[in-house]
């Protein structure tokens, strides 16, 4: 059945959420090199591993997020992406050493060691963050004519978020806070984003998720 094009929560709420997810992706990526360097060094190949895995994870996330957006898109699922990304970021904070140590011991070549470590630490949270972009587009689009404009706006906002996440982390955050404190900050902002989405959904659509879908059908 063809889904009607409808916005379920206001675009001015969705856009800042995409900004947060963009910023979080790059904050975690910038810290990735710092997290891996005690085990795999600071060589160019370590950066190569991190960027490769982030790009792959994002691409998979885009694909899955796009597919999910075609099946009754709703703010609750959208909020779940943020919660999921936050939850799967926790191993980076809590289990990084436990995950990297056996890899360091079994894989001598730091290129492949850092690649495997990047997969285990960063793939899942980054892929989930990647799902947010296409899903945001779907939630923001209310008609076919403005779908391109909305996609453009969304990429603009989330990429500016990425740029500022990169700059903030590498210029200032590492000077002010510890790596894990910054990661807790990123996790907290993802949870905050999920909270804002759920509260907005409640205010706009009422407590019942089904009403959201009915609201869509009416539109």
């Amino acid at each position, binding site marked *: 059945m063809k889904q009607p094009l409808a916005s379920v929560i206001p675009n001015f709420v969705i856009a800042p959420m995409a900004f947060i997810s963009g910023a979080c992706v790059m904050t975690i990526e910038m810290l990735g090199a*710092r997290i891996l*360097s005690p*085990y*795999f060094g*600071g060589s160019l190949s370590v950066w190569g591993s991190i960027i490769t895995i982030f790009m792959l994870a994002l691409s998979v996330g885009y694909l899955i997020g796009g597919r999910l957006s075609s099946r009754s898109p709703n703010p609750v699922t959208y909020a779940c992406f943020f919660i999921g990304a936050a939850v799967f970021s926790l191993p980076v904070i809590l289990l990084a050493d436990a995950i990297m140590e056996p890899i360091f011991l079994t894989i001598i070549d730091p290129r492949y060691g850092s690649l495997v470590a990047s997969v285990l630490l960063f793939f899942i949270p980054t892929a989930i963050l990647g799902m947010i972009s296409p899903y945001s587009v779907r939630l923001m689009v209310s008609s076919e004519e403005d779908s391109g404009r909305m996609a453009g706006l969304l990429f603009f906002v989330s990429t500016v978020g990425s740029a500022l996440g990169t700059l903030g982390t590498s210029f200032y955050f590492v*000077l002010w806070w510890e790596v*894990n404190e910054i990661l807790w900050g990123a996790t907290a902002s993802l949870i905050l984003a999920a909270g804002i989405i759920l509260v907005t959904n409640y205010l706009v659509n009422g407590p019942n998720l089904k009403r959201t879908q009915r609201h869509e059908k009416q539109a």
Partner: protein
Amino acid sequence: MRNKLKLLIAQFTLLLLVALTGAGLVSAETIHEEKSKYRDITVTQVGDRRCLLFNVHRGDRNQTCMLVNDRDNLVFDYTRMSFAGLLLNGDPQNILVIGLGGGSIPMAFSDLYPQAKIDVIEVDEAVVRVAKEFFYFEETDNMTAIVDDGRPFIKRAGLRGIKYDYIVLDAFSGDYIPEHMLTREFLEEVKKIMTDDSVLVANTFSTSRLYDHESVTYQRAFNEFFNFKLPSSGNRIIITQLDPLPPRGELVTEARRLAESLGKYGVPLLDYTRRLSTTVDWDMSRRELTDQYSPGNLLQAQ
């Protein structure tokens, strides 16, 4: 007439030769340039002074020089200062040098202690190649250059129970020491490859805010260290060991014993004994550098 012409040609040739040599002596001639994975490498020569420069366009000062006709002579203060660790361990058998550069430190060690086993760790294979091609660095049965990052190398050596009795930390990336080799956790890993007889010699800078942070970190890891600075040098050398530091008298005795063998490298060991200080001249309230907090390059800029 013919003779006159010959004379003229001879005079002209002589003039040209003088002019060319003169020019060569005055301006540095770039004899090699390459972009490696990590940096721009430039080799210049002025007269018989040949220098290795990294990122010359950015004006970085980390470099090494060699006199091609007097190769034993260590040109820079910091290179000579790296041998002050011999005052604590005058007979090293297993030497580890992190950061190759032009190879002057490991080559002098190899010359001084031909029977000692020397491992040199260099992250950039291009630097190893350039050191071999332009700075007469040679691997021997006892001296090996290993292309690896210093930190994982030391971590792995620690897990394998390998020990070194003279460790020189001289790794510099673009701006400064790589941030993951400034942290408390790294120093704890270094301690694992040291024995009671081992000495650690770390080459750092004495300017910038980072000086305080580094000093606090080394102090927490080793309790105390010799702070070695020369008025002529912007470098500060940290010299320490696992045991408490020896009294000055012992250093002087050791310096007298070793002075002669180090003379040809231009290392004034006896003078150095007066320069090794244990006085705290840094801000002890500064934050320790850890794997969680190590903004080395940002602090270096301040």
